[in-house]
């Protein structure tokens, strides 16, 4: 499979601030890739390097096999971009902005343009000055989604959308994927990424700390177990392999703990011997993964 986006050991500093600290990111063709991280972790800097707007201090970047800095103009015919903070020309209407941006990029699917304007409930005759943040985002999203660009780069595209419009956006992401297009979706809205993305990369302080399918990442992390048993549990439950965060109720028949993925079976069979009456075992949510990576200070990286 072809690789659409590839960066290796990307580094960029702005004065004393280290924005990117050896970032490796790979997105194969046809994949919807979640790019997760809190504000200031380097997501937007990475995207701006991929778009040839910013030049990295060192490291390798390729977009469709080309150099985003040197071949920016040619590559941009194949990329549609939605910035995180959408600024529009105040005296142009939304419809005009959609047309201008698409024409500058190299064309638009007319049918899809009309369809998207209707589904996103955008009034294209209003001047951009009067649009709310969500409506400005819709303008940029429609211009991007109505294009036939094989790569969509979306930088927190839904932060101003309401839940209904968020759903429309999710549908459109699926449609883009079924057309075989690739998507890099930067976000800190975890449910959005969980719904839409096949693989995610979690970025922290300018480097990728975790990358893989959601299933892979869950496998790496801990599940939460809640069990009710007939015989009281012994004190040594926190000594069981892989178990931590134990909470036991007063009667010692209800227990809650988290357990490493490889030890789930072991823990459940021990509980079974105590006479299980109820058991729930939840895999880690993306939120847990995310918080796990962010609750401790990063190793070897000075906290800014």
């Amino acid at each position, binding site marked *: 499979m072809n690789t659409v986006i590839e960066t290796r050991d990307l580094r960029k500093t702005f004065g004393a601030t280290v924005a990117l600290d050896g970032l490796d990111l790979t997105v194969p063709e046809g994949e919807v890739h979640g790019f997760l991280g809190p504000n200031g972790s380097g997501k937007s800097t990475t995207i*701006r390097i991929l*778009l*040839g*707007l*910013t*030049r990295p201090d060192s490291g390798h970047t390729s977009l469709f096999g080309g150099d985003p800095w040197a071949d*920016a*103009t*040619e590559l*941009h*015919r194949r*990329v549609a*971009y939605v*910035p995180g*903070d*959408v*600024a*529009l*020309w*105040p*005296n*142009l*209407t939304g*419809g*005009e*902005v*959609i*047309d*201008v*941006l698409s*024409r*500058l*990029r*190299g064309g638009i699917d007319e049918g899809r343009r009309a369809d998207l304007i209707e589904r996103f409930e955008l*009034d*294209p*005759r*209003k*001047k951009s*000055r*009067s649009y709310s943040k969500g409506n400005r985002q819709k303008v*940029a999203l429609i211009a991007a989604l109505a294009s036939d660009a094989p790569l969509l780069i979306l930088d927190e595209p839904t932060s101003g959308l309401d839940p209904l419009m968020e759903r429309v956006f999710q549908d459109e992401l699926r449609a883009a994927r079924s057309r075989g297009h690739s998507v890099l979706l930067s976000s800190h809205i975890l449910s959005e990424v969980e719904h839409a993305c096949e693989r995610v990369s979690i970025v922290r302080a300018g480097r990728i700390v975790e990358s893989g399918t959601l299933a892979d990442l869950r496998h790496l992390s801990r599940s939460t177990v809640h069990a009710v048993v007939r015989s009281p549990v012994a004190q040594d439950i926190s000594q069981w392999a892989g178990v931590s965060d134990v909470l036991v109720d007063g009667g010692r028949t209800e227990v809650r703990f988290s357990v490493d993925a490889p030890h789930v079976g072991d823990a459940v069979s021990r509980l079974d011997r105590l006479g299980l009456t109820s058991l729930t075992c939840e895999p880690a949510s993306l939120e847990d993964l995310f918080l796990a990576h962010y609750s401790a200070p990063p190793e070897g990286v000075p906290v800014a």
Partner: protein
Amino acid sequence: MSTLTGTGTLLHLAWRRDRVLIPVSLLALTALSVGSAQATIDLYPTDEAARNGLGSVLTNPSVVAMYGPVAATNRDALSVFKTVLMGAVFVGLLAYAVVRRHTRLEEEVGRLELVGAGVVGRRAPLTAAMTLAALAVVGASLLTTIGLIAVGLDATGSVAMGVAWMIAGLAMVGVTAVAAQLTTSARACAGIALSALAAMFVLRAIGDTARGSVAVISWVSPLGWASKVSAYGGNRFWVLGLAVALAVALVALAFSLLDRRDLGAGLVAARPGPARAKDGLGTPLVLVWHLARPAALGWLAAFVILGAVLGGLVGSVADMASDQSVVDMLKALGGSAGSITDIFLATELAFVAVAAAAAGISLALRLASEERAGRGEPVLATATSRNAWLGAHALPAFALPAALLLALGLVVALVSGGQDEAPGTVSMLAASASRLPAVAVLVAVALLASAALPIRAPAIGWGALAVAFALGEFGATVGLPDWLVKVSPFAHAPQLPGGNFSPTSAIVLCAVAALLTGLAFSAYRRRDAA
């Protein structure tokens, strides 16, 4: 909660944001009036010397049109003749800039909404902005009064000079406060307020130069009032009452408009626009032109009107030809050899070239303002190259001043056509075109600043124009060394019509402009987009 709650806090905030702009402007304005007065009294230490040296010159209509009538033919009045009206215009511009900055501009970018949600009365932001602007105006007046007394000018007259500036400043506080209520766009607010200032200037220029009953027209214009104070002459302090009355009326109007409208809205409701972009609107150049067109057409209208006024004055200028001292004065102001009409037009073209450069600079700076507003990034993320985006700004930035100067030259030639002394169409167009190389250098400076240092670009672009204008206009008067005056591109522009055209100067200026433009392209390709 009163409608004025929070005014004090907002005033403090506004001062914090303007703590460089206002003091620097006040010092520059004071230096302008005091420096110019000092230079004049060094040359002409007595009333008689001043009267003999300057007196008769200053009744010339082209001088009066630009600087206003002279209050009296004593030394002190003559020593401020250049700065009464010019300074009043600058004080008016400062008042406009401060009011607009803290009202409509804040409202358009949405910061006023953040402020408005706090414990802030409805009228507080406008009140704070007007208060700060009025304080700046009073400060400029006080400083110049003190400075002029310090260099030995008559105390009463010096107070009157300050009053003249105060009149223009207070009037512009009121005008801008109303303009800020009318439309939703800060640019349109600028257009309305600056057009009002230009109208004030043109009305008083007509009134001051007209004979007979038409002269009353000067009394319609607050800039006319500034001259009517007659500092160091009649010292008519009561004229300030007119300005205060006007300002109070305008402020009351602004408040009543403000009370009737929603935050962020204007009095003129936004109409729905087209749902689709016009067919051609899909290249960088067409986009830039589409965005800049309203401003460009405004400039063009102003230049056509100015051309008509100058063309109309050509006839009355010829009447003054008998007076040799007039010819000498005009030569000193930037004219050259040739007939009196030629000298008059060459002098006026020197001023017009500065305005044309301002038009070009404002277009060149759009590259940087688009980038700072975050609108450059989505364009550069399309198949638009850096060269194409910069070029789309460079082309109109150079073309607009050229179009403006040629349009003005053509209108002057058409309006003055048939008068004995008037230059022909071809020589008038050539005279206009001869200013272009100097203008191009300043546009190229602004372009390079936009391309290389987008955050500092406005300061560099406008600063370069201010320095070039000040060196060209006042450098020789204040007695600066020749090499320093020659730093200004305007010092190298030929004094046409009538004077000699130096191809070498033109070629050198064009080469400098081309070099700076080349550097702009090179710098823009290399740096990170912000």
